[in-house]
């Protein structure tokens, strides 16, 4: 479904290059120019995000500021559940601070939509997303801005390629005791999604067995990468492909593993809260995220492009050669809170 021919891709990339050249307002497409004019009166947005890594998120914010001079994106990067906690605290206190909310736990959005907390907006640029990523919400309350792949990785100095685990269930082998590292579903949205998927495939027993191998638990799904780099642990479980590839590109002894069952994919949207203090800038930011601008920035940090006109990052397997695993949004909304509690009971934290 993600299939697209190389020639199409090159053509599209050329078009996208013309698009991204930043600066003058008259170069912007009409719908963006209109929003930009309105946004200039607001001046800034605050973006709560748990999707891209901290470094990538900062780069996205800077690219937005460059494309639309005079506007400023305040990047508030944290794990997705913490971002959601911040948003909930805002709502609980009746204070509006967030303009765009981006979470890897796509269950958040159906919940927010049902509670009437989101602003309806259809970004024009969303029509150019990868076909499978379009129309995340038929009612246009949220739109896909992130395609995260979560896999296994190992430190090549501590574990040879031949010995490394090959499937999600391989890490349950007792020989990996005290060598695994994983994030926490109470913090990371993606780990919550992953836990839902693993439970769906193998039952909660999967985590009972994982617990017996005493994985080191960080907060973010990215945390294990640091542990692998340092040699503190040997195998990372459900680590983002982007952070792994970026770390490899910086000379760390890591290798990304494509589990035989398939790769966990979180196709996650962003949304504008109903009470966003800077709605026009927020809409413009949604255009920016669904347009080529975001994809061009993030591919430099090895994250998956979400548009066919921006090529995927280097070193990543093309998406059409990968089996993608993912629970449905309904399952995510219903089961992530459940697996979080189960996780805490099983792992004690």
């Amino acid at each position, binding site marked *: 479904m993600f299939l697209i021919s190389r020639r199409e891709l090159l053509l599209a990339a050329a078009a996208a290059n013309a698009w991204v050249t930043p600066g003058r307002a008259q170069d912007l497409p009409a719908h963006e120019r209109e929003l930009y004019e309105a946004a200039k009166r607001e001046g800034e947005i*605050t973006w*709560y995000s748990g999707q891209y*890594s*901290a*470094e990538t998120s*900062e*780069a996205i*914010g*800077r690219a937005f500021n460059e494309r639309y001079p005079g506007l400023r*994106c*305040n*990047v*508030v*990067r*944290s*794990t997705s*559940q*913490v971002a*959601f*906690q*911040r948003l*909930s*605290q*805002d709502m*609980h*206190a*009746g*204070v509006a*601070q*967030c303009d765009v909310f981006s979470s890897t736990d796509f269950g958040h959005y159906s919940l927010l939509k049902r509670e009437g907390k989101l602003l309806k907006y259809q970004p024009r640029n969303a029509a150019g997303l990868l076909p499978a990523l379009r129309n995340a919400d038929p009612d246009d309350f949220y739109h896909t801005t992130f395609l995260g792949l979560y896999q296994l990785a190992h430190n090549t100095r501590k574990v040879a390629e031949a010995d490394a685990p090959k499937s999600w269930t391989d890490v349950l082998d007792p020989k990996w005791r005290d060598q695994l590292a994983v994030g*926490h579903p*109470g*913090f990371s949205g993606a780990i919550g999604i992953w836990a839902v998927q693993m439970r769906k495939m193998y039952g909660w027993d999967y985590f009972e067995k994982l617990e017996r191998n005493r994985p*080191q*638990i*960080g*907060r*973010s799904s*990215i*945390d*294990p*990468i*640091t*542990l692998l*780099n*340092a*040699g*503190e*642990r040997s195998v990372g479980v459900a680590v983002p492909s982007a952070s792994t590839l970026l770390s490899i590109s*910086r*000379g*760390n002894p890591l290798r990304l593993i494509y589990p035989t069952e398939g790769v966990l994919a979180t196709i996650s949207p962003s949304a504008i809260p109903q009470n966003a203090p800077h709605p026009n800038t927020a809409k413009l930011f949604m255009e920016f995220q669904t347009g080529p601008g975001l994809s061009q920035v993030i591919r430099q940090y090895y994250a998956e492009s979400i548009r066919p006109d921006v090529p995927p990052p280097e070193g990543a397997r093309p998406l059409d050669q990968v089996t993608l695993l993912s629970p449905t949004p309904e399952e995510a909304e219903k089961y992530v809170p459940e697996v979080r509690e189960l996780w*805490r*009971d099983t*792992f*004690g*934290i």
Partner: protein
Amino acid sequence: MAEGAVPLPAAPAPARRLGLVGRLRRAEPVSLLWLLLAAALVFLVAFPLAKLVAVSLEARGSGAFTLANYATAYGRARYIEALINSLMLGVASAGLSVVIAVPMAWAVSRTDMPGKGLAWALVFAAFVMPPYLGAIGWILLAGPNSGVLNIAWRAVTGAEDPLVDVYSFGGLSLVIALHSFPLVFIFVRAALDLVSSEMEDAANILGAGTWTAMRKVTLPLVLPAILGSFILVFLEAIALFGTPAIIGIPARINVVTTQLWQFFEYPVRVEVAAAYAIPLLLVTVGLIAAQKLLLHRKGFVSQTGKGGERRPIALGPWRWLLLGWCGLIGLLSVVLPLLVLLQASFARAWGQGLSLENLTLRNYRLLLFEHEMALTAVWNTVWFSASAATAAVLIALLVAYIVTRRLVLFGEALGFLAMAPFVIPGIVMAIGFYAAYAGPPLALYGTAALIILAFTARFMPIAYAQSSAAVRALHPEMEEAGRILGGSRLTTIRRITAPLLKTPLLGAWLIVFVVASRELSAAVFLVGPRTRTMAVLLYDLSEQGNFEVVAAYGGILLVLTMIFVAIGMALVGRDFMLRRP
């Protein structure tokens, strides 16, 4: 002490059947001031606490009376386990702190140990270092596989098992103790300074050696100080948020503070968090009460006077052992963590060791030039802490003055309120503030004001203790002379009292500034996207485990702290932060 020696004219004159207006007209400014201060303290301390208690008894939404929040908060084994973990952690950290600090205090105060200045400097450095930075330093030092200490240990001994595992209950307690022991040191040393050598001489004459005399005479005399500081460290430890989040989560130790955080997950359950926090408050109040009771029963008369002679005890070769102990503690609490943090801050990957290709300025570049929030957070930290320090010292000074000079009836009530936050764990206070002021009518959530107010309240006791010591040291005769010569009370305060208090107050201001600038637990629930402080941003940065950037930011925080500490040392005196008020 001269307080109350002279009947002061300012005491509110018994009303002679005047109307309200008349009474108001005759009221001295100081009565109005009393009202103002009372209002400020009620706003800062009493109301958030009352709100905390009230919210814990309210049903969500309807606000009807209920005990259900307590049932929820204590209805699961995991939640109770967290409470037990916290209590155990508190006892372990406080116990370790006593073990670490008492020999050091004794050595510095009573013996001829060489290098006392160095020991003092190390204690001071451990005091200034933010605990969560120490925690990260210790992860780099004592991670079971990649920690520097464990790598060295394996290389030297060929052992398989690590020497120390930071991700354990013991590791967590040790890391907390290594940053809390200065409290014990300060209190015990102050007490030891007051014990006269004659007491020990008497013991010696009766046949006791140096050690017996210390054990049977000196130590019991300072037992109240040890006990008091034990309780202080206990309270510190159970209220810490950063260290348990950074070390406790990988170590799988859930404690009260990390559990409180969970109650703030969606849907935000402030009422359950409040209910969960109340027993913590009771434990604290109970401990303080128990301490008062214990000390009340025993008469430690010898502690009161400054009389008697004090000679350093000659230790012979033992003095090198004590110096070694001080050096070891300094190494563990300051030198080693700082070294590894420094290395990490310039490293591409902290586990790759010291090498040229691992060297980079990228972490600093990211923070200083590319990170959208890093510099804003530095600025936030400076001005929030400065505002809070100014407000706290101002209020504390006025309260201290009124209480010490007995200018009004019920002045002690103000003093009590100003000291109350001392026994309230920071994170509990933050929840009180969130419940009271985050939402309507004030809707302060996400504003700088909320954080400044919370910091002001949280550190009021420090400012109050310092101010009241300073005011007590000031003899009222000087003011009386000013008043006899015709100055009003306010003129006297402005022209005579204030100049004399300038230096101690600057000291108080700087202490509040430094502790506020690193405060995490009171800030973590109150910050908004634009009001994050360095401590909160460090916590956010640590989420992904990229300790290189965290270490670089920690370095920036330490430089900032050191600038203000240096100012304090230059203007107020070398030991301004370690004096016991």
